[in-house]
Structure formats: structure tokens, C-alpha cells
């Protein structure tokens, strides 16, 4: 049952139609989570006794930092699936995730630096986590650059997937190397990123924001996937039918559901 669902979802036309139905719902839930999280974080939660109101940036910073790592892992896993089973959709998930992941990484860096200004008095400190985050951004940019440099998009997707896999093996090594380097060069500084015992009224909005960000990622990746599918399959009958006339959309949906679905086949 599950395998059958998986197999069907891996077929681009079927995926295109289904994801189109999901998108509005996901958007509503995502918006609700983020609004609730923002309200809880900016209004409900008490100010920090040391940092005052400036701590509230964690409601953007921490979920972005979580997302940056999460998306890299998703990218590598999707890339691995795409390479091993030749599922084109998985490769597309990998390459569509890269720019989103890079944006979250960038957001985490910017918010970290904004937070650092009142804390440290400078915009940038070679703090272990910030440095790892910066290197993670480089890894993302490498994947994006490689994908952009190869003309044949199928080949580009597979090359980017390999790079993502190599990167995911290296991330822990890089992370611990940088942490170790940081403790050596700076001495044991008390960083604000240490896990403090966080109060429950601060934690709940944080988790809501994290859920909202995850959904936002899902929505963004679905939308990128849909346009990527249309672009790659522009020669196939179902895309011509879809783009040719919107009012025949229902017909296409029916035809797609009837037709045999094979994830490995392009339909020219």
C-alpha cells in the first residue's frame, strides 16, 4: 500500500496534480502556525532577565538554524534516493531544496549577527556555531553553483546530489573541527547559544515557529518542484495539454490518473 503510494507519487504528472491540491491547505496551516508563534514569542513570552527584548530574535534565528541543517540532510537523502533508484523526482527535490536551504542559512547568519551586536558589541564574532553556519552556507552555494554550471539538467541534478552526499558526510567533521578550533582560540567563552533551561512560555512559540518554518519549506519546495517538473517535461503530452488550455485541466487530471505511472520514464 505504502510502496504503491510512493511509486505513484514519484510519477511527475501525478505528483503535479496532487501537490496542486495540497498547496492551499498547507499554506493556511503554515500561516496559522507562524502567526501563532509570532504572537506567542513577541507578545506573550516574558522578556529575558539578562537580554531584555533582544532575545526575541531567537524566534527567527533558532528555527532558521535548525532548518539550515535539516534541509541539507533532506537534500542529501533525496539526492541519494535519486541516484540509487533513478527517481527523477527525488533528484528534483534535492536541487530545489538547495536555494531554500541557502536562504535559511543566510537568514540564520544575519539574525545571529543582529543578535550579536547588542550582545558582543560587534556584528561578527568567530563563534563556533556562527562559523559552522557560514561554512554550511558555502556548502549550499557550492551545490547551487554546480547545478547551475552543468547545462544538461539531469546530469546537473545527479552531480549536485553526489556533492550533497559528500557534504553531509563532512558536515559533522567540519562542525566538530570548528568547535574544537573555537575553544582553542577563544578560550571557553559563554555563548548565548548554550542550551539554557528555557521557560515553557518561551519554548512553545519557538516550537510553533519551527513547525511553521518546516511547512514553509514544504510549500516552497513543492512550488519549485512543480515549476521544475513543468520545465523538464515541457515536451510531454500532459504538460502541453495542461498549459495549452487551463479549462481542460479536469480532463488532464483524469487522464493522468488513468495512465500507467512509471517514475523512470520521461514522457516525450
Amino acid at each position, binding site marked *: 500500500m505504502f510502496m504503491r503510494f510512493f511509486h505513484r507519487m514519484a510519477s511527475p504528472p501525478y505528483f503535479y496534480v496532487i501537490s496542486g491540491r495540497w498547496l492551499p491547505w498547507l499554506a493556511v496551516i503554515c500561516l496559522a502556525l507562524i502567526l501563532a508563534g509570532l504572537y506567542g514569542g513577541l507578545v506573550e513570552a516574558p522578556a529575558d532577565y539578562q537580554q531584555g527584548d533582544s532575545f526575541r530574535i531567537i524566534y527567527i534565528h533558532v528555527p532558521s538554524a535548525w532548518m539550515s541543517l535539516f534541509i541539507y540532510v533532506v537534500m542529501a537523502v533525496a539526492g541519494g534516493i535519486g*541516484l540509487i533508484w533513478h527517481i527523477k523526482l527525488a533528484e528534483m527535490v534535492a536541487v530545489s531544496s538547495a536555494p531554500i536551504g541557502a536562504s535559511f542559512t543566510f537568514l540564520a547568519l544575519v539574525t545571529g549577527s543582529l543578535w550579536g551586536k547588542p550582545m558582543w558589541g560587534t556584528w561578527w564574532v568567530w563563534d563556533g556555531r556562527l562559523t559552522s553556519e557560514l561554512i554550511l552556507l558555502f556548502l549550499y552555494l557550492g551545490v547551487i*553553483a*554546480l547545478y547551475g*554550471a552543468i547545462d544538461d539538467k539531469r*546530469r546537473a541534478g545527479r552531480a549536485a546530489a*553526489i*556533492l550533497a552526499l559528500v557534504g553531509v558526510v563532512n558536515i559533522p567533521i*567540519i562542525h566538530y573541527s570548528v568547535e574544537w578550533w573555537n575553544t582553542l582560540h577563544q578560550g571557553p567563552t559563554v555563548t548565548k547559544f548554550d542550551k539554557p533551561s528555557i521557560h515553557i512560555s518561551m519554548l512553545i512559540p519557538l516550537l510553533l515557529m519551527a513547525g511553521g518554518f518546516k511547512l514553509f519549506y514544504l510549500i516552497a519546495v513543492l512550488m519549485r518542484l512543480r515549476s521544475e517538473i513543468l520545465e523538464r517535461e515541457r515536451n510531454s503530452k500532459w504538460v502541453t495539454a495542461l498549459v495549452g488550455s487551463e479549462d481542460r485541466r479536469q480532463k488532464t487530471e483524469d487522464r493522468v490518473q488513468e495512465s500507467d505511472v512509471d517514475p523512470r520514464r520521461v514522457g516525450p
Partner: protein
Amino acid sequence: MKQVVCMKRRSTLNAFYFLLKRDLILNFRRRAEIANPLLFFVIVITLFPLGVGAKPQLLQSMAPGVIWVAALLAAMLSLDRIFRSDFEDGSLEQLLLSAHPVSVLVLAKVAAHWLVTGLPLLVVAPLLAVLLGLPVDAMGVLVVTLLLGTPVLSLVGAIGVALTVGLRRGGIILSLLVLPLYIPVLIFASNAVDMAAGGLPVTAQLSMLAAFLALALALAPWPAAAALRISLS
């Protein structure tokens, strides 16, 4: 059956040996090019005192990092040579279509590349360390870090080259792909030299470097082989 497997293994070893020898011969016949990355290494290091000033203390404290960053850049610049000419004359296709595991052949090519570009760095580095005023005690450690670290650079770099070998302008992208992956080696190697200059023990750093080398030896040939297949498709 066992005998067949045994024969096969021996012939793969034979292929490894032949490919290594072939690449060394090819490099020898173009020996003028071998000196280039080495010259680059020397020039980059001479730029530093000119740029930051020749205060002995400053230079000495910067020496480990400067030497290692220069080694990183020199290794990266010479990486393209691993697969480029084979790609252009079609030899790479023949390697991929051989009866032997491509990862073993990749390893042979990386080994040849390291012998030609990495090993000379070991010889020149102590001289440059003298220029930068690094204490003599740290010299040995510097050579050991280069011995352990530069093969890792070649191995990891091979993945990057394999991914970009089909591109007309792969050079800059290659640096973007490869340099972030070099960071752990840079951290531990330069730190080991730094510590040795201060007379502190460095076994931890050296064993980390050795672990990186073992890991890279075991893992890097696979993605490099897969990347070559993709680049040639």
C-alpha cells in the same frame, strides 16, 4: 571459483600499478609543469611578509596558518590535472569501461597526482618555514602534517574534479566545492604546527589527521568514481 576471484584481484592490482606508472611517466615527460604549483606555493608565502610586514614575531605566529593555506591553494590549483587530459583525449572513457572497479583506478590516479604535486611540498615547506622564522622544533611536525594532510587534499579534491571535469570553466567552481571541505584538515594541521612551535604535545592533532586520511582513503574513491560516470554521461 576462488582461483578466479584471486586472479581477478591480482589483475586489478596490476591495473592499479600500470595506471600509477603510466601517470608518473606522463608527468615525467611533461616535467616542466611539475614545478608550477611548487612555484605558486613559494610565491604565495613570500607575499605574506611583504603584505603584513616583516616583524619576526608576527611572521612566526602566522607561519603555520600561512604555510597551510598556501599548501591548500597550491594543491587545489594542481587538482585539475588529475583528470583533465584524460578527459580530453578519451582515456577517461576507457578507464570507465575497463573491467576493473573504477574506484581503484581513481585511487591510482590520485596516488600519482599526490606523488607529483604533494610530495614536493614536503621538501620545500621546511625551507619556507625558515623564511618565516618557524622554530626548528616545529619543522618535523610541519612535515608530518603535510605528509598526512596533503593526500587528504588530493583525495577529497578528486571528487570535486570528477564533478567539474566536463565543464569548460570548472576552475572557480572547483574551488567553491572543494575549499569548504578542506577546512578540517587546515584547522588540525595548522594547529599542530602552532602547538609544536610552542613546545606543546601534538599527538591528538596528528591522530585526527591520520583519521582523516584513513577516512578519505576509504570513502573518497567511491563518490569520485560515481561523479566521473555522471560527468561523462
